[in-house]
């Protein structure tokens, strides 16, 4: 057994986290910043943070991830990191020449109380910021929230780049939240089909799913441009996909820029995508194009064709709140039964939302925000499931307990495809069904006695 020391019996833990279902804020801020065209994320802390975040993102995407660091020394930790930051700004513009430096803090710089706004002022005063270049920043102490809240903070800083001209641009802001590059691309495709002009931010498509062409672009072609970000204040409205990832930025634009917003669930699965598409067509005042209707119909068709294999299968889920809410709703709509649901990100309203979605289910539901995968594993030992959906770390549980496993979420370190094939939208729903069905039927085929080994399923 890989996790041989995990006991079935569950004891409450007040201080010890084992096998976390979250990581720290800065990596979220870094991922979000990569969704700005020509942006170099910068980690204001000791160099290890930056190294770890770059490694984690690189392993997930199998793509280069560039980011700089203030490389704090012990001295800097005592006397403050301003000198390091100013020096970094000089060097970054001199050597890498990005359009934007997106700085996030760390537990280190937060604990010593570095003030980025002040540092930026100083840099400005000293003329360290070349004309037309931008520096944005957000506060992401690792001891608050999780990678999800860090992502949200940087997205909010992106929103704060808005420079309203007073003249509406006729566009819709869409904040996709922490989804894959392929998902962002798919959202753009759907929006395009619906004939809505949009500003999508952040946008990591074309950044973290790039080609191999013999050329290395430190700043790839993708990403939301500074021009677009400045224009978000002139948009007709904002759709935020996911309360945890995107709500704050949307509400800031609403309250400060008077750009009305609506926070929807991330468009995973049938119903959440329905609500997204319905919002689009109402905002745009268009009727839904046949192509989208066809994709929807195909998803419903596959649900009906394969329903017998989904029906009442028990599922354990671990991941981030926005994703889990949409996935739970999707599974329930397939008549599957998500019975153990864990996120490491804090937030009681997550538990409430899940309970609401699962209230008609024939099984008792275990849900925990600020939980960990050790707890999830113990729940599974007490009430086994037919399927686990989560990030790569689930493979240790899946192997120990011999449970079919679909990789979904962050990080996925041991398989390919997530950066190329979307799971949002109706087509994404088809892909999720294909994957879920694949592992369930593989298991059926594996365990079937020879008498009932089936050719046709």
């Amino acid at each position, binding site marked *: 057994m890989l996790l041989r020391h995990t006991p079935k019996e569950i004891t409450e833990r007040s*201080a010890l986290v084992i096998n976390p279902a979250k990581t720290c804020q800065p990596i979220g801020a870094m991922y979000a910043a990569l969704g700005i065209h020509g942006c170099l994320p910068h980690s204001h802390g*000791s160099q290890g943070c930056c190294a770890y975040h*770059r490694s984690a993102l690189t392993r997930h995407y199998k793509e280069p991830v560039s980011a700089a660091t203030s490389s704090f020394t012990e001295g800097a930790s005592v006397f403050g990191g301003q000198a390091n930051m100013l020096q970094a700004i000089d060097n970054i513009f001199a050597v890498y020449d990005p359009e934007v430096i997106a700085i996030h803090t760390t537990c*280190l710089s937060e604990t010593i109380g570095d003030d980025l706004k002040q540092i930026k002022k100083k840099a400005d005063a000293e003329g360290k910021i070349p004309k037309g270049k931008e520096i944005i920043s957000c506060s992401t102490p690792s001891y608050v929230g999780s990678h999800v809240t860090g992502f949200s903070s940087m997205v909010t800083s992106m929103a704060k780049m808005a420079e309203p001209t007073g003249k509406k641009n006729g566009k819709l802001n869409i904040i996709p939240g922490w989804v894959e590059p392929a998902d962002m691309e798919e959202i753009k495709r759907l929006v395009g089909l619906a004939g809505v002009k949009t500003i999508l931010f952040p946008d990591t498509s074309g950044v973290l799913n790039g080609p191999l062409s013999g050329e290395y672009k430190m700043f790839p072609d993708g990403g939301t441009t500074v021009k677009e970000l400045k224009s978000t204040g002139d948009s007709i409205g904002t759709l935020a996909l996911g309360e945890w990832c995107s709500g704050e930025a949307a509400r800031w634009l609403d309250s400060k820029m008077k750009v009305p917003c609506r926070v929807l669930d991330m468009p995973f699965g049938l119903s959440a995508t329905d609500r997204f598409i319905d919002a689009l067509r109402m905002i745009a005042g268009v009727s839904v194009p046949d192509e989208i209707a066809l994709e929807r119909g195909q998803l419903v068709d596959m649900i009906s064709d394969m329903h017998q294999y989904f029906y009442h299968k028990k599922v354990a889920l671990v991941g981030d709140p926005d994703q889990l809410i949409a996935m739970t709703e999707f599974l329930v709509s397939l008549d599957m039964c998500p019975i153990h649901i864990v996120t490491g990100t804090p937030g009681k309203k997550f538990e409430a939302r899940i309970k609401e979605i699962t209230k008609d289910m024939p099984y008792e539901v275990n849900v925990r925000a600020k939980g960990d995968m050790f707890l999830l594993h113990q729940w599974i030992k007490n009430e086994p499931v037919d399927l686990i959906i989560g990030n790569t770390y689930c493979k240790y549980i899946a192997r120990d307990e011999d449970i079919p496993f679909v990789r979904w979420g962050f990080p996925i370190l041991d398989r390919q495809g997530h950066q190329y094939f979307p799971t949002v939208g109706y087509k994404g729903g088809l892909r999720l069904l294909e994957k879920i069905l694949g592992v369930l039927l593989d298991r059926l085929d594996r365990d079937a006695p020879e008498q009932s080994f089936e050719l046709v399923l």
Partner: protein
Amino acid sequence: MAAIPKKKLVQWDPAEVKAELLAKYPSKVARKRAKQIMINEAQGNETPEISANVRTTPGIITMRGCTYAGCKGVIMGPTRDIVNLVHGPIGCSFYAWLTRRNQTDAGPDGENYMNYCFSTDMQDSDIIFGGEKKLTAAIQEAYDLFHPRSIAIFATCPVGLIGDDIHTVAKRMKDKFGDCNVYAFSCEGYKGVSQSAGHHIANNQVFKHIVGENDAEKPGKYKINLLGEYNIGGDGFEIDRIFKKCGITCISTFSGNSTYDQFASAHKADLNAVMCHRSINYVADMLETKFGIPWIKVNFIGADATAKSLRKIAEYFGDKELTDQVEAVIAEEMPEVLAARTDVRTRTEGKTAMMFVGGSRAHHYKELFNEMGMKTISAGYEFGHRDDYEGRQVIPTLEVDADSRNIEEIHVEPDETRYQARKTPAEFEALEKAGYTFKQYDGLVPDMDQGTIIIDDLNQYEAEKLVELMKPDIFCAGVKEKYSIQKLGVPMKQLHSYDSGGPYAGFKGAVNFYQEIDRLVNSRVWSYMQAPWQKNPELSASYVWE
């Protein structure tokens, strides 16, 4: 697979290359980097000086990690039966969770916490009011759940800043439990200038808190410790296989596939064989001073180097039985190695490599490339010190800067009861007369060819330039560097994690490495970057129907 012929050899002048690398830097940075980029012009035995183990420049995208990474990730990570509890916000523990490929055999006792990740997940309240209470509770919960023989605590950045006294907490819990050794590491990420400081902090604590804890006699005739081997991709398993076959008993490995008890019994060995000089040479010194165990530098990367190292160990014990067995093993293992080598050389001969990794690996792996007839045209360390480049003779001359000053240096005395010279002065003298060298390491530089370029703490910008200018057939570094290099169409081999390959140590490892490099440098894949329409872009008229 047919080898794809490549037009070689790119011509380049090292001085020009160096100038190119520095051209874009602000003058202050350029001056600093100039000292870390060295054109190898070794004459005789006088090696030019390189600046190493110095601060990373803020804003310059470095390959380096932090002290915590060196301490928890590298040194303590591979130890299976110690609960490694990280005190700090969640991230640091999460990122060090199973991301290094130290393999582990749970052994008969089955104790293995390698697949677990333990953290106190500090929250803002802990930062404000202090984290000692939470740490204490976490240690208690870990003890109650697992009853491990030992719990190690690692401090991340904020811990030092808010002044949690983790060592006192550890001591208190150790005394409370009685049957569980608890100790702490002040390895905050901001200390030192690289992972190297973390290695040092880790090794010091292991030496202080564990080594010598178990005085029980260990069976075995030729007892050694293997220092600085971390069992990445199973390297340690291969070396253990060879030791076993030779009849050499490895009391403890620092720290690949190691256990608490191995460390505790390390003083029972009669020889310390040092693999990674950078991360552990000072432990070898301390073991000698305190217990009288002499040490030698070995290298099990490369089949020839492996044979050489085995002979060196055998020579130390000076026992015909061992010598014969070692020769027998070498004679048995080499044919397969040579067969593989001969085969791949037809495809790898004359190709070029670059290596920027670790504090010894770049040197060790040069051996393997040599065996394949490949030339290392540029190399350097991520966290090496001058002695790793220039050899130990420079150690006395190294000045201790502000960053290193705070890294504890332990002063050790011979152990009253347990110090014991392993040989008589006469025996040592005889050995040395015969040319045997103890505690000797000459570093990377002497092994590098004239005119090659040696670069300390290479950064992403320089790496890209270097590849563009010198067009190596393969580039070796870590995962962060892998894909930017490959975007340029040059295969990149990770020498930290081996890209989920390995083992590459010992005899079988050499064969694995030959085949892996053969696959990489001769892969068809790199020929696909150009689409046919890029090869001949003219249009329309030219289309030929059947």
